[in-house]
């Protein structure tokens, strides 16, 4: 019997099996942000164990609430800053260099094929788009990761989601992943790793693959993995060109990190996207999904474009294409948050920021803030937000608020009409 990609990664990183079915893995990277890390730092300090296993493998950012909104968030930032300094963590991203962790860290080349990565953040599954085993963990796992460079996982099981067909115009990776979650449910991949395969995934950019992998956790998955290919190599080339003589050589090396043809999958789900329409969530669970067509006419108070799901340059380009030369509805507050400074800069250079501002959007600095109702766009009771983020949970963007998840194209079109609508009406 062959092995799945995640079985190969486990095999190459296992340092202990404390009991049957539990594997302690050596970590290639530990990512940290200011919401879940400060308590780990304080706990290490109080135990007299204020150490880090390897400062070069720890990457840290202040991204959830930045700039600080009050004394408490200022304190969280301070704890991170002081800790990064005293341990010589060179890859620490503070104001001016900071962005949404799952957009920033890939952009810096920190996620690589075959890596093991943890972070105290459930959307760490995003980095699986590079053929890595990347998993969200809690603060205690993070704390041990920081201290010892290891983390324990149960035996991974893999679910393959094989996506075929061709996406129609106006349909994007976000629509695909919403359709997948709608099909398998919020508990459909719990304790499993999802492998996204098929011609649709093969032809996707890294930005789109990250959108897919990002929402794997909304189906309960530990990680959402895509096999590395030439698209991966091209994305990483600036960081790896000293390691390999050519891109072909890098690809040859990375091709270790795919599943064997006779690997054992717990489940295989085939998705044909030929007839897929733009999708949107209703209700309070991300598997409550229907075609935008069926939700048309639903009024919204706010449109948010950003986050680790859809705040990358490709997303901003798509939204700007819809918005160009148009104004958003008077009844809508439009907010766009480019996910990293580099994305922000590109969007400026390409004239995208101007399109957003001309249409009536406010452009905020890179931050996670609004997505989880912490800052920069919190909803009032009874308000509705059309959002490119990943969670529509009750209270997620503000107590008593309702969130409809959708693609950047649908969000931009919705901003113009003030009601949920397909982006197709603004084409041509």
């Amino acid at each position, binding site marked *: 019997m062959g092995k799945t990609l995640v079985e190969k990664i486990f095999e190459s990183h296992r340092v202990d099996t404390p009991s049957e079915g539990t594997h302690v893995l050596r970590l290639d990277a530990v990512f940290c942000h200011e919401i879940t890390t400060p308590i780990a730092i304080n706990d290490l300090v109080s135990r007299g164990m204020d150490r880090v296993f390897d400062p070069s493998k720890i990457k840290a950012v202040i991204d959830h609430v930045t700039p600080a909104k009050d004394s*408490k968030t200022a304190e969280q930032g301070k704890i991170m800053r002081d800790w990064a300094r005293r341990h010589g963590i060179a890859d620490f991203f503070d104001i001016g260099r900071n962005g949404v962790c799952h957009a920033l860290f890939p952009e810096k080349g920190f996620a690589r094929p075959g890596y093991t990565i943890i972070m105290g953040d459930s959307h*760490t599954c995003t980095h699986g788009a590079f053929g890595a085993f990347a998993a969200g963990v*809690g603060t205690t796992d993070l704390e*041990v990761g920081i201290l010892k460079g290891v983390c324990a996982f149960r035996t991974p099981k893999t679910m393959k989601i094989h996506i075929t067909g061709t996406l129609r115009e106006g349909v994007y990776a976000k629509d695909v992943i919403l359709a997948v979650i709608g099909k398998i449910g919020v508990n459909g991949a*719990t304790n499993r790793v999802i492998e996204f395969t098929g011609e649709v995934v093969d032809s996707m950019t890294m930005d789109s693959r990250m959108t897919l992998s990002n929402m794997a956790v909304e189906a309960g998955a530990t990680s959402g993995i895509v096999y590395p290919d030439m698209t991966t190599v091209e994305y990483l080339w600036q960081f790896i060109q000293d390691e390999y003589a050519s891109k072909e050589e890098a690809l040859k090396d990375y091709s270790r990190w795919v599943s064997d043809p006779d690997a054992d999958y717990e489940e295989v789900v085939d998705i044909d996207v030929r007839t897929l329409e733009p999708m949107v969530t209703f209700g309070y669970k991300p598997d409550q999904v229907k075609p935008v067509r069926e939700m048309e006419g639903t009024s919204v108070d706010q449109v948010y474009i950003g986050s680790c799901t859809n705040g990358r340059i490709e997303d901003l380009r798509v939204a700007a294409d819809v918005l160009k030369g148009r104004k958003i509805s008077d009844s809508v507050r439009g907010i766009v948050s480019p996910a990293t400074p580099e994305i922000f800069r590109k969007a400026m250079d390409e004239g995208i920021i101007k399109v957003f501002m001309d249409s009536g959007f406010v452009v905020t600095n890179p931050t996670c803030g609004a997505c989880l109702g*912490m800052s920069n766009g919190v909803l009032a009771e009874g308000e509705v937000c059309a959002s490119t983020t990943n969670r529509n949970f009750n*209270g997620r963007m503000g107590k008593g608020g309702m969130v409809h998840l959708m693609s950047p194209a649908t969000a931009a079109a919705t901003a113009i009409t003030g009601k949920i609508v397909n982006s197709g009406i603004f084409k041509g």
Partner: protein
Amino acid sequence: MKSFKGKVLFLDRSDINTDEIIPAKYLTEITKEALRPFLLEDLKMEGFDPGRDISGKAVIITRSNFGCGSSREHAPWALEVNGINLVIAEDFARIFRQNMYNCGMMALELPGETIDRLFREYAGKDVEIEADIEKGILAVRSGEASEEIPFSLEKFDRDLVASEGWVGFADSRY
């Protein structure tokens, strides 16, 4: 070892997420104790009133996929500072489940039919449960009625409960 004994809070819904258990706006707290008043504040469930229903409870019995969503360990901490160290469900979201054991708490899985029966026979009543980890038995008492329900705990989970969490276990071993 923590205590796994006391009155039961029944939460008759699947997919209760960690945003419902502790909303993100409280994640700016840097002590566990500060989370205490806000447990289950945003839980969307008919008839549930956190102010009335949580007090005095030490065990939660719920349905499936409890703790899905965000990785925040603030969810187990909010339970812990309210005196709840044991959650019993059909199954759990992976990160929440691991977070519970990493804190020396227990997330116990029972078959769906057992959970169904517990809801049928005991929900709405005054019920007490005590977990005996050595014997692998849950002792259930309600008025005159009592019963014992077997459970199994993986060795690693048992070790974490005994070491009161993963930091102690990992520090002695790696």
